[in-house]
């Protein structure tokens, strides 16, 4: 009574297809040699099927598997991070091909496939990745279908179509489960992705590392303003981190701030000890004033694998595990390895007058390496010797930029030793990081405390969905100088060179740029307006995807329960779960029934079937194979009184069935038959 345990050939092909579909997207994140392992396994399996090779023996398989695991350990260093674990799973998924003996092995492989296909989404949560996962599910389901279909069907189309249909039919119920099934938080800590800082910038700035981001239109974050209206572009300076350390070329965090976790702990300790700085008090007082103007917004940040949050100037962020630094910047306890959401309130008019500058800080922010960029230092010193005030020095350097300098992407490598001198006195063209760096060096040389700030500038306003999209291309660097009675003040030297860049935002600037700009190296960055518009629309879809599907968590579920179910008691949840599931399944059942419903008999046959029904009620049932005439004559033998009637009826029914007549006659005939039928009394 056992079933046939062989593997049907179509199932094997489907298995290989499904494996390819499942493995491909993972290759973006895992070592490519896994693809070779898979290809070799496939080759071997095919040769086994063709009868060329035998199935590999244990003496081959075991060392093979062990050496692969060893190779993984070697290439990753440790196994307990996300990538090596997924790679291990994928390895098993590939090598199991060498060991396919029965249906059960294929089943195991396919079930593993479902799991592997879903790990792809740990790396990417875009719509495309999800749709792709659905396609890989469909191919795995096709393989499963081929595995269990006993009547061999060698064509590939029907299985795949059927699988897609199955998925489509399952989606309503899956949606119910998705929204209503109670969520619980993580059960235990899991190894996270080890890939850090792939996108966005790192915690340092040197010539060239921001300009290379400008080709990257992937979103950095999206901002949802409470007013559903964006402030003007020129005020959209998204501050991320400030760099005070300088080695003549590279801007870095000062040594005591370089370890993010230590820095966070120190901040947390200060907060716990109620150790408040006067600036914090002052800002608090300002916040409580009635007349203070503020902007509320919510930032949905892509995974940056860095701990910094981006805010407009003088913001307050009240989120768990987020602390403010002395620079009004925000540090998260852990690097943002997932897309995360935070709410912020910014006070654009707040003056940081009360901010004092300690001696240590003054020293730190005026420090320049002694042996580099002598010309720049000399020029700034000269300004100072002329008796210029701080303001005048700032203005004269901005004037210098405006007069002689060009905003350009074509930045040939600057002199290694004195990059700022090289930029200021020979190249005279550059990108925001060059201007920010040179400006800060000039300020420091003139003994004005200054630092570089990294962040994003501008963004694109999405009119339909009403949110601001900030991409990596909007990355920007500017400077902040400390002025007595004003505190840290933003100065953007780029605005002096290319004010349009700041007024319009990076992308609009590129679109506006005429041929004149092209010689400066922006031509390959400019997108056609159509493409840009399309991209914006696509991003709007992405945004709804994020806010509806990806960020649906326990809290949102509670809100959903409250709103839709009118409460969050257990019985409500269970009732809705059962009710909605039953409803969805009932719809499916109805569809299945409708598809296979019994067919109505042809209209011409109906009178005869009616007669049969009537006679059956009287106890006469037509035998299978008995013609109507035989049947009626059999009835007539027992009921001679009906003979004439039945004979006439049969004849007319035949006429209706076989003789083509006009529709008038047809109607008449139907009427006559009905009358005749009524006159039959059993």
């Amino acid at each position, binding site marked *: 009574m056992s079933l046939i345990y062989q593997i049907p050939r179509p199932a094997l092909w489907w298995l290989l297809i499904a494996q390819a579909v499942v493995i491909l997207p993972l290759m973006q994140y895992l070592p490519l040699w896994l693809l070779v392992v898979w290809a070799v396994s496939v080759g071997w399996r095919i040769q086994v099927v063709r009868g060329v090779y035998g199935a590999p023996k244990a003496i081959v398989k075991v060392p093979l598997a062990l050496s692969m695991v060893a190779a993984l350990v070697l290439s990753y260093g440790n196994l307990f991070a996300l990538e090596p674990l997924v790679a291990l799973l994928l390895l098993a998924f590939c090598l199991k091909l060498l060991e396919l003996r029965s249906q059960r092995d294929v089943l195991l492989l396919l079930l593993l496939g479902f799991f592997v296909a879903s790990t792809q989404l740990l790396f990417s949560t875009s719509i495309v990745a999800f749709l792709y996962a659905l396609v890989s599910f469909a191919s795995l389901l096709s393989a499963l*279908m081929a595995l269990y279909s006993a009547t061999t069907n060698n064509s590939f189309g029907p299985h795949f179509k059927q699988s897609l249909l199955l998925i489509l039919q399952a989606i309503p119920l899956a949606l119910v489960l998705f929204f209503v099934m109670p969520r619980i938080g993580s059960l235990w800590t899991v190894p996270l992705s080890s890939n850090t800082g792939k996108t966005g910038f790192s915690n340092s700035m040197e010539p060239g590392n921001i300009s290379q981001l400008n080709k990257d239109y992937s979103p950095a974050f999206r901002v949802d303003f409470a007013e559903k209206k964006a402030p003007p572009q020129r005020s959209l300076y998204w501050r991320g981190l400030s760099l005070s350390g300088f080695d003549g070329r590279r801007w870095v965090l000062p040594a005591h701030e370089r370890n993010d976790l230590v820095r966070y702990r120190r901040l947390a300790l200060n907060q716990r000890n109620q150790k408040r700085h006067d600036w914090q008090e002052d800002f608090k007082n300002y916040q409580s004033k009635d007349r203070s103007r503020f902007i509320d917004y919510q930032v949905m940040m892509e995974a940056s694998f860095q701990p910094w949050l981006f805010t407009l100037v003088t913001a307050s962020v009240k989120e768990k595990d987020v602390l403010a630094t002395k620079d009004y910047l925000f540090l998260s306890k852990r690097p943002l390895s997932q897309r995360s959401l935070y709410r912020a309130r910014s006070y654009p008019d707040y003056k940081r007058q009360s901010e004092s500058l300690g001696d240590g800080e003054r020293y730190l922010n005026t420090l320049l390496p002694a042996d580099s960029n002598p010309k720049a230092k000399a020029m700034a010193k000269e300004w100072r010797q002329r008796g210029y005030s701080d303001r005048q020095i700032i203005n004269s350097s901005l004037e210098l930029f405006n007069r002689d300098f060009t905003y350009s992407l074509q930045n040939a490598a600057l002199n290694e030793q004195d990059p700022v001198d090289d930029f200021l006195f020979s190249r005279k063209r550059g990108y925001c990081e060059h201007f920010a760096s040179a400006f800060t060096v000039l300020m420091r040389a003139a003994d004005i405390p200054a630092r570089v700030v990294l962040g994003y500038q501008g963004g694109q306003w999405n009119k339909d969905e009403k949110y601001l999209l900030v991409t990596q291309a909007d990355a920007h660097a500017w400077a902040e100088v400390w002025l007595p009675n004003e505190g840290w003040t933003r100065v953007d030297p780029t605005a002096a060179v290319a004010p349009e860049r700041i007024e319009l935002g990076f992308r609009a600037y590129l679109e506006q740029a005429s041929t004149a700009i092209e010689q400066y190296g922006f031509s390959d960055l400019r997108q056609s307006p159509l493409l840009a518009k399309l991209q914006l629309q696509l991003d709007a879809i992405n945004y709804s995807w994020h806010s509806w599907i990806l960020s649906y968590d326990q809290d949102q579920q509670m809100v959903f329960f409250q709103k839709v179910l009118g409460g969050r008691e257990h019985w409500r949840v269970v009732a809705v779960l059962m009710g909605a599931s039953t409803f969805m399944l009932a719809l499916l059942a109805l569809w299945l029934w409708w598809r296979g419903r019994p067919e109505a008999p042809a209209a011409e046959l109906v009178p005869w079937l009616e007669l049969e029904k009537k006679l059956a009620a009287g106890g006469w049932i037509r035998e299978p194979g008995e013609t109507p005439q035989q049947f009626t004559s059999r009835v007539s033998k027992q009921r001679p009184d009906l003979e004439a009637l039945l004979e006439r009826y049969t004849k007319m029914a035949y006429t209706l069935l076989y003789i083509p007549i006009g529709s008038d006659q047809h109607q008449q005939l139907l009427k006559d038959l009905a009358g005749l039928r009524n006159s039959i009394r059993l």
Partner: protein
Amino acid sequence: MPSSLNPATKKNPVLQKRDSIKTGWLAAWRRRVRRWALKRRPAQSSFVLDRNNLFIFPTGAGFALLLVVFLMWLLGTNYDNNLVLALAFLLASILISCILHTHASLAGLKIEVSKLQEGFAGDELGAELRLSRQGKRKYHDVRLFWAGQYPKAVTVDQGDASYVSLSINAVRRGIIEPPLLCVESRYPLGLLRCWAWLKFDTSVLVYPKPVEAGPLPATASDEGSGDSEPVLLDGAEDFSGFHSYRDGESLKHVSWKHYAQGKGMFVKDFQSYADEQLWVDWDALPGMDREARLQRLCDWLLILADGSQPFGMRLPGQTIAPATGMSHRLNCLRALAKFEANQLASLSSNYYLEGKL
């Protein structure tokens, strides 16, 4: 005495014990379910599969998929990844909607036994089933098997009906009914099994199994003479000439010599004595029990039916006059099959469940 275990079980008693418990428990459970189903369903000549006779339960693959759903749920929950959770829910809901699909892949199918071939005890009897569709519904991968046999898969998706040829074991002589028929489907994904056990009221005649009985005793035409000295069958006839071969004639008397010489196919004629009648006679086998006698009678009958001479058959209370031809042969075989059939032990429930006595 502790050493009463036999050496085989002594070698690995744990394994043996566990094995036997597992199979025993499962088998007992299955038998119990089927016995219950047997009692519940009256025999019918045709069945329409519906809620009343269909059962459905996940297969091993279904339970394994459930485990995968659980693992995916853990993955999604621990990584706070809504998309992985969504996929887990999707897979679960595919499993749930497969309940409907699998049920629909059998529901409405009408099954009847269209042909049951008579045969000898111990043979496989051809049994043809007619599967008719409801409306335009398609029935993929319907597996059918009689209890104790291997399944045969068929797809009913064209025309009004499909026919499937299976075979049943003729377990004994007499009138037998087929064992329970299992109709099952795992369509579309093999995650669930939907099945029905059907008991048909159709019956079929089973002839006795022929058992070599030695030469046929020649009985004289004059029954009173009592001359019952056994004579070889061939001795009862004399060669008288040839006639050309006619279709359907036994190959026994073909003159292969002529055929080999390319002269055509001729059959040797034997002249039997006009006054000598051949009888397959119950009384010729004294001292045997009923079934043994019938088996030997059947053997004689087959030998005689292969020849061209008329023969008759005598059973207690029943005589079939001498004749020749296929229909005569069939009459005789049927008489043997039916002989005191009502006195045979009725088929046990075990037969219906396992397909063997």
